[in-house]
């Protein structure tokens, strides 16, 4: 067996004067990086195993441990970077497809960072959210072309029958993350936080654990290509159903949960045997045309007595606008777009990093196309893919979204350090794992609290930004691209985004 050419990515630096040999780092590292040597009375760390998740750093009671990028340099080469070289070494050694977790880390342009918001001055006074009421509530679902009011009883009553709507207290929904990819405790925290904050969470393609049925009112259940866990109760307990056609992290291919992560509970929830790989096929094998999609949408509506909105989620790809138009005409109440930065529990690196388009462009185009076709009211647009803070959310709504899915941000709130090793099943923060020992680390009480805190913080920030723009209802911002200006963008970017460049007035 020849040597491995893969050198450590990280280097552990231990301040020996502060290290008290308590062994917490050894006990807490699921990758077995640290080991106590009783003969020399010291902790020895194996850099080759470190994934940079910072668990040891966070728990060390004397702050004796630090982790840095391993300063091992290749000769400077803009084309043949260290990463590219190491990827080839890995494949030469294993013959395998490169796998990874979380979202696209490559330095594609982030259009959110090239868009700025307006603020009111002088002519249009800003609103103080601490003194004036602010409406952040958002309704997702098909809106009618017109409404009719019935005055016959003396009081105005809505005569038009509305299609089923979802009520969100904030324009934020927790993104689809499957039970199996993430631990049960994480699912529980998402469900509880969504319920407490008055928003929703999405089960992803892992089915819904029976113990979480009580949060059904705040649950969107997914019907993905593998149809894992899809049955009568599953559909009926939820508030909405989402047909997952694709996801931003891996457009064009299906989901993959390794057999090691399929234990008793996951097996029961997904309705597959213990230990089998859960492979979702790339297409739904009953959707080969837009008419097939319409059939599935209405089959789901029939099964749930037309009481729940049906969403269709696609990855943002080149002709997203045309696809979205087709989806709306097929009867979907919500179109969910997942951009280039979307996260995943496991995906081939090449696909995650090179397939799909940024959500900003997809959103602008889809919103534009639906408006042009006069059908924008027929479905709400939910966008996903790397939303990092409340400013990204405000910009997305201004660009045309009804609400924003957050996935990575929610995990980070719960402790994720984005080390991208989810596909190994070892997660020192108890999130992307089915190992019962590791799962304990995610205390649902603490995680719920952290998620609710994040939502509360972002809600206040959104109110501040709205108030600054002189708006007191999120509805006034929706699709209002005049509140956005581009900075450092090309004419083509500006045209695609449908926004003016900064410096240009009204």
């Amino acid at each position: 067996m020849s040597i491995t050419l893969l050198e450590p990515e990280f280097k552990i630096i231990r301040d020996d004067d502060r290290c008290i040999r308590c062994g917490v780092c050894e006990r807490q590292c699921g990758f077995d990086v640290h080991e106590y040597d009783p003969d020399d009375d010291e902790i020895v760390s194996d850099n080759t195993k470190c994934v940079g998740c910072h668990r040891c750093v966070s728990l060390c009671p004397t702050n004796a441990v630090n982790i840095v990028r391993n300063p091992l340099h290749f000769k400077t080469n803009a084309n043949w970077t260290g990463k590219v070289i190491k990827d080839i070494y890995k494949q030469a050694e294993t013959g395998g497809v490169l796998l990874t977790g979380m979202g696209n880390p490559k330095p594609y342009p982030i259009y959110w960072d090239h868009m700025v918001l307006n603020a009111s001055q002088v002519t249009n006074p800003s609103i103080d959210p601490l003194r004036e009421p602010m409406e952040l509530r958002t309704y997702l679902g098909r809106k009618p072309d017109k409404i009719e009011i019935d005055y016959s009883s003396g009081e105005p009553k809505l005569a038009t029958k509305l299609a089923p709507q979802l009520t969100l207290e904030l324009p934020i929904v927790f993104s689809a993350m499957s039970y199996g990819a993430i631990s049960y405790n994480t699912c529980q925290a998402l469900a509880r936080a969504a319920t407490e904050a008055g928003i929703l969470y999405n089960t992803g393609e892992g089915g819904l654990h029976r113990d979480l049925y009580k949060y059904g009112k705040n649950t969107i259940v997914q019907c993905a290509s593998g149809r894992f866990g899809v049955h009568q109760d599953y559909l009926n307990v939820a508030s909405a159903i989402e047909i997952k056609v694709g996801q931003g992290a891996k457009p064009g291919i299906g989901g993959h949960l390794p057999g090691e992560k399929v234990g008793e509970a996951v097996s029961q929830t997904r309705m597959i045997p213990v230990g089998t790989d859960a492979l979702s096929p790339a297409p739904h094998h009953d959707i080969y045309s837009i008419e097939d999609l319409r059939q599935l949408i209405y089959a789901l509506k029939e099964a749930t007595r037309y009481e729940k909105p049906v969403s269709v989620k696609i990855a943002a790809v080149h002709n997203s606008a045309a696809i979205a138009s087709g989806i709306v005409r097929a009867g979907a109440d919500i179109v969910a777009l997942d951009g280039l930065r979307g996260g995943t529990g496991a995906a081939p690196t090449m696909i995650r990093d090179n397939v799909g388009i940024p959500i900003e462009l997809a959103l602008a185009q889809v919103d534009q196309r639906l408006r042009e076709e006069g059908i924008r009211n027929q479905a709400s647009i939910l966008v996903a893919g790397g939303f990092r803070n409340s400013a990204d959310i405000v910009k997305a709504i201004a660009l045309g979204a009804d609400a924003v899915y957050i996935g990575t941000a929610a995990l980070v709130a719960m402790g994720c350090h984005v080390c991208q090793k989810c596909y190994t099943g070892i997660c020192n923060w108890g999130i992307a794992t089915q190992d019962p020992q590791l799962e304990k680390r995610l205390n649902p009480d603490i995680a719920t609290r952290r998620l609710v805190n994040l939502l509360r913080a972002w809600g206040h920030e959104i109110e501040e930004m709205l108030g600054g723009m002189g708006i007191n209802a999120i509805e006034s911002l929706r699709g209002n691209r005049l509140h956005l200006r581009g900075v450092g963008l090309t004419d083509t970017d500006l045209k695609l985004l449908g926004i003016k460049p900064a410096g240009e007035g009204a």
Partner: protein
Amino acid sequence: MSQSKKADNKKQNYVIIGNSAAAVGAIEGIREADKDGKITVISKEPYYAYSRPLICYLLAGQVKASKMLYRDKDFYKKKKVKTVLGKKATGLDLEKKAVLMEDGEKVSYQKLLISTGGVPFVTPIKGLDNDNVFTFTTWDDAKNLDKLVKKIKKVVVIGAGLIGMKATEALHARELDVTVVELADRVLSLALDKKASDMVKDQLKEMGIRVFTNNTVVGITGSGNKVERVILKDGTTLECDAVIVAIGVRPNVELVDGTKIAVNRGIIVDSHMQTSVSHVYAAGDVAEAPELLAEGNKVIPIWPGACEQGHIAGCNMAGVEEEYIGALCMNSIEFFGLPTISVGLANVEGEEYEVLSKYDQKEKTYKRIVLKDDVVVGALFVGAIDRAGIYTGLIKERADTKNFKKELLSDNFGYVSFPKELRIKKLQVIEVG
């Protein structure tokens, strides 16, 4: 100690004869319910209650006289207890409800507690009346021996029970040459089994202490009145300057001789520590109380037992009903750095018992668990005494160990070995989510 009902506040007159563990327990028990009643404590010893088991530490020089008191100096004052110390109670008038004192005085009572403890058991050996022959159960015994220690070289201790062994250890610590003579086939025959006893014997050997088993002293001789040698059953003679007689202790029931109070070996009491005469209670080494592990009553003279019984007697005397779960034999004694703990039927053998044991020669540790129908009835530890109390708890609760029996001997036996429901019940561990 379980159910209790609230007392009605009558100004009672409580008298306690004896002033050791049971008495203190009783005082505390009474005062929990009755803040005003009159309490009088009578003791033939001239001291406030002291920690009797500490006399061997005192003799060994490991503890100072100032540390001997069991409670603070102002305990009696704070608890409003009148003490009559250094005076002996010689009789009882149950009709008139009075205690007769040696100086003719009479102390009347409404509720009486007899906690006179035990007296050393002495068999008729020739030469017992020589100087420098001691028993070893009181502070004064320790004081007297202490005065003598510098003047003597060799001591023979008769009896290798708990008192004899602790006396041996103390005298050895004072650099005397000690020889132990025991009637049974092993030291500490009541508390330990053969294996554990051998481990202790090995320690004694290492310390240079000679031990004779299956033997006893039949005569003590000397010139003048001073002890010079003892003669053993098998004819061996041992030179020595002093003899400690530590054959055993029997309940001090002298006071109730000739009265209506029922006596067997000790004063018989029920689970409320009440004697056959309703206003008279008994507790501690003098009492023959209901046993935990068997039907019937037994005298089990141990410090924790005396405290518990005293406390229960006190509560019941003050009108608060408390029931005794039963006397359980238990001892914790360390000899020459080797700790031992024995609880319940620790050294029994027989077909009805299941015995699990583990011995590690190198570590000098031994564990012996005795079960009957999957219930722990006895536990014996030498060396590895950590967390022994968990087993004591299992014995007291008569817990069914079927689900975790195989864990009982493991080194890290603990609450993690119990099934989850049992653990949650005992610790109130709560569930998350």
